[in-house]
């Protein structure tokens, strides 16, 4: 019982500290000074740096979706509708979530490791000593870049996923190219597209704020940095799935 109470206290403390960081980030994002150079650097690190992994994930996800659903649709003689399944699955759900999970693995862990190393080598204390607010300098540029680049990367993953589905549909399933693309368009409603575009903003926020929170609370030298990196990936991945559920619920209420 005592161990459970201790665990609960620690969990509540983490939630409190995470909320404080998120609020400080929001406050610092709308007040001066703003570190433009760091923001642009993070756009590059998070956006361009994650492009390869997102393209590969999107391509193979679209391809395997077409492959699996094509043979299932065959049972109903509906193989020409494979495009509908690929586009609906990719754009509404798989594109945003898989892109976010890839970013949780790449970006959240990277941020936690970088900020964690800065904490244990006293670089964050040095920043404060030099009159620089670590939230403004380190957290705000990363969070804004994450919020902006996650939707962009999701669009890339969706596009490449549809292309992957097209290649498999044409090559393996022998569906006519024109039929595939018209099926892709038929499978989508405008609300679906909006949902697919809006969800990544929430997911991007979770990925980066979790990485920053875990990184800035790193304790215990290099071992602590390793622990923080693992914790960031786990927490961000769970956060992505949970946020996907809640944001889907919210957007269903608002859009449909």
């Amino acid at each position, binding site marked *: 019982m005592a161990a459970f109470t201790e665990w609960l206290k620690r969990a509540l403390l983490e939630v409190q500290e995470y909320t404080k960081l998120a609020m400080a980030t929001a406050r610092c994002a709308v007040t001066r000074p703003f570190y433009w150079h760091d923001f642009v650097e993070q756009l590059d690190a998070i956006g361009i740096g994650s492009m390869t992994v997102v393209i590969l994930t999107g391509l193979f996800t679209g391809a395997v979706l077409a492959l699996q659903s094509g043979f299932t649709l065959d049972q109903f003689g509906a193989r020409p509708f494979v495009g509908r399944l690929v586009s609906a699955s990719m754009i509404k759900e798989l594109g945003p979530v898989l892109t976010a999970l890839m970013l949780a693995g790449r970006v959240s862990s990277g941020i936690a490791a970088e900020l964690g190393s800065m904490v244990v*080598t*006293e670089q964050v*204390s040095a920043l*404060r*000593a*030099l009159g*620089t607010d670590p939230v403004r300098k380190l957290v705000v540029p990363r969070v804004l870049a994450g919020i902006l680049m996650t939707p962009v990367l999701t669009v890339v993953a969706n596009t490449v996923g549809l292309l992957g589905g097209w290649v498999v549909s044409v090559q393996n399933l022998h569906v006519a190219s024109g039929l595939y693309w018209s099926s892709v368009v038929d499978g989508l409603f405008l609300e679906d597209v909006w949902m697919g575009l809006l969800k990544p903003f929430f997911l991007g926020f979770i990925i980066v704020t979790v990485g920053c929170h875990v990184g800035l609370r790193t304790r215990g030298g290099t071992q602590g940095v390793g622990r923080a990196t693992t914790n960031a990936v786990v927490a961000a991945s769970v956060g992505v799935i949970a946020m996907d559920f809640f944001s889907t619920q919210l957007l269903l209420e608002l859009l449909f």
Partner: protein
Amino acid sequence: MATVPETLRGPAKGRPGDEPVVVFDDVRLAFDDNVVLDGISFKLYPGFTKIFIGASGSGKSTVLKLILGLLAPDSGTITVHGQRIDGMTENELFAVRDHTGMVFQEGALFDSLTVGENVGFKLYEETDMPLADVRTRVEEVLGFVELGPYIDRKPSELSGGQRRRVAIARAMAFKPKLLLYDEPTTGLDPITALTVDAEIIKLRDLESVTSVLVTHQLRDAFYIATHGAGRTPEGHAIVNASPEKVEEADFVMLRDGKIVFEGSADELRGATDPYLRAFLS
């Protein structure tokens, strides 16, 4: 000051008319059940040096973090540059930190920046100073610590001693009135440590910077307390300090969060307290 026996306590020093730069009054701090500082009181006057010595975990580095406002005390008052800082917010503390520099234990240089960018960090990021002027100031302070040619190198390309000197240059770049040194020579060989000691002495005597030094390297502590820097036609020289100058450096011994000795280098050498003797031996 209740914890310091009268026989071990040095006088509150300062030149007539000078207001203290740092005042600790009955400061206490604990992390959960671990009492780190227990009733610490002292004053530090402009141009003087306070050298904190003591075993690892005695609370020395915590004193520096309290002066800088990186930590807040549980009770007691801390006044820095005439302003009470123990109740200040982080934003209010930034103004006080404009006049205080700190050299961290391992240097804490920013890995991703060059030596020049590290040294000019505050001037580049937090002031409106023109870039050309910042560059001039960076070259000036790197020249002071004799690392001018290293301006475009990354910290990872420097030796341990060079990194500490860059850290000193970064701390002095914005001309603070007070400099805090956290174990500046720990882990360095004796020869390299002397070059770092020399920079501390030069800053104190040539730039009139008030200093707080935390160390358990007694050799370096005594060297800094008993030497002074003077300008010469060739530049500067480190010489033995006059007896009056030696009196301007105060040693403070911490033990389990309490001050157990406060006095000059000579008083410390002459101390008869068994713990002090054991520490000095």
